């Protein structure tokens, strides 16, 4: 497989064209995080609902390239139903994987595993991680009982 075919796997493009769990809920039950990458214009909001330490609902909405938008859809499916500890492990593992560093290949990652190809495209690292960073932030906001609505910019590296 060429680098490109490895980056743009069928699964990724399928999530891009047919995103799952897309669209936000207008309710105070959710922790939401809005992330923007001012350099490229990616703009993404994710929402999670946590019950008994478990992520029971995930939604996302935004605009951006196929990698960032599909990753939000994939993330929403992958972490649905996980408890917070599991979810945090998956986030870290995913980030290591797309950076091209050592990661736990045994860990359950769902469709997120296909983002391995990103490691050959360092310029796309931020696209692949924006949704997962938003999730990480939403989880820590929940754990710290801090703001339910968060606005952030991704710093330019």
């Amino acid at each position, binding site marked *: 497989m*060429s680098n*490109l075919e490895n980056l743009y796997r069928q699964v990724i493009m399928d999530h891009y064209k047919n995103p799952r769990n897309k669209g936000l809920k207008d309710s105070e039950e959710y922790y939401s995080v809005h992330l923007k990458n001012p350099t490229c214009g990616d703009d993404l909001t994710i929402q999670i609902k946590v019950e008994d330490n478990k992520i029971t609902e995930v939604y996302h909405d935004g605009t951006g390239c196929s990698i960032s938008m599909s990753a939000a859809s994939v993330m929403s499916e992958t972490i649905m139903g996980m408890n917070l500890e599991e979810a945090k492990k998956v986030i870290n593992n995913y980030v290591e994987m797309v950076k091209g560093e050592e990661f736990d290949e045994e860990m359950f990652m769902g469709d997120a595993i296909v983002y391995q190809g990103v490691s050959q495209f360092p310029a796309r690292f931020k696209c692949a991680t924006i949704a997962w960073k938003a999730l990480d932030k939403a989880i820590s906001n929940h754990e710290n009982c801090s703001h339910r609505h968060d606005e952030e910019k991704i710093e330019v590296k």
Partner: protein
Amino acid sequence: MKVNDIMDINKIRKDFYVLNNNDLAYLDNAASTLKPKQVIDAVTYYYEKLGVNIHRGVYRLSYEATDLYEKARQKVAELLNCQFEEAVFTRGASNALNLIALSYGMNHIEEGDEIITSELEHHSSMLPWQNVARAKKAKLVYVPLNEENKITVENFKKVLSNKTKVVALNYISNAMGYMTPVEEIIKLAHEKNAIVILDAAQAVPHIPVNVKALDCDFLAFSGHKMCGPTGIGVLYGKYNLLKEMEPIEFGGDMIDYVGLNEVTYKDPPYKFETGTPIIASAIGLGRAIDYIKAIGFKDIMKHERMLRDELIDKMSQIKGITIHNPNTDTGIISFNINGVHPHDAASVFDEENVAIRAGHHCAQPLMHCLNEIATIRASVYFYNTREDINRLVKAINKAKAFFENFM
């Protein structure tokens, strides 16, 4: 040399290490150009043979460093056709444009005054004035762009008024490659006693610029977009304006007399060059000016336009792409592959070793006008070849075909 080649490109390309060391179609020249070895050598000469401060030392090495630094200023003055004292070295175009706004703007703009700019500006041309307008309760007025998103004299007249104090516009748009009709705009603005600032970051590297003929009040450009080093740029200002302007930075080198409670400053340009300047980069810029002049703007323009025509011609034959500026005046072409986000396309280009820019090009207001989140921009310089254009066209076709697979 081919019959209709304008200059000896192969010879020129040998001067550029980056072109020799990479199999690369470099088409991101509006962001930064590559540097020829002559410029790198000039910078290295300073670090290897001199390495000392300027103006301060009374020894031989310092004398030579000072001489090279000031000779570079002289080259800038000759390039722009201004006086030596009217060329201020800055860190770049952004730094120069901010200096004008913070010094001239903050001291001259009053509540209710109007500042004209446009949605076609680079953020560095427009944001310093948005800041002044906010601080002084002045009004920022945008020239309406025409249907091609150009600035026209007609539309400029619609916003010019007796309240206009400052006109801050690009000379050539970095996102669309249009040339602003600055000659007439400057005349009209002066009839209202408004001053005109030209963001010439995309002009000075590509076309002859004569500030006396233009009669603009200020003009700014960057060295790194014209074969020079990063970290150096120029602010041109009419001497009488520079003379009465307040410095915005205070400290070493810019002073005449310092007392405990009072200070007098040097005359321009020195009162705006606080602290040890970017000596090596200024020397490098001087060398870059020599290099470009030796090729000549006439040939540079001809060559760039030939490549542009060829690119637009070839791109027009590809279905499913939108060219935003088919009537571009320069070698800057902005486009989208329909249905493909520019960053997705950019990864295909990257695999093909075609360097272009995908993004908002520091012109977010323009992206709203174009109704796009981002565009792809290809921009040529004198060292580009038809082969580079062919490689870009091939990459566009590849990106299209690749993403059509998933449709």
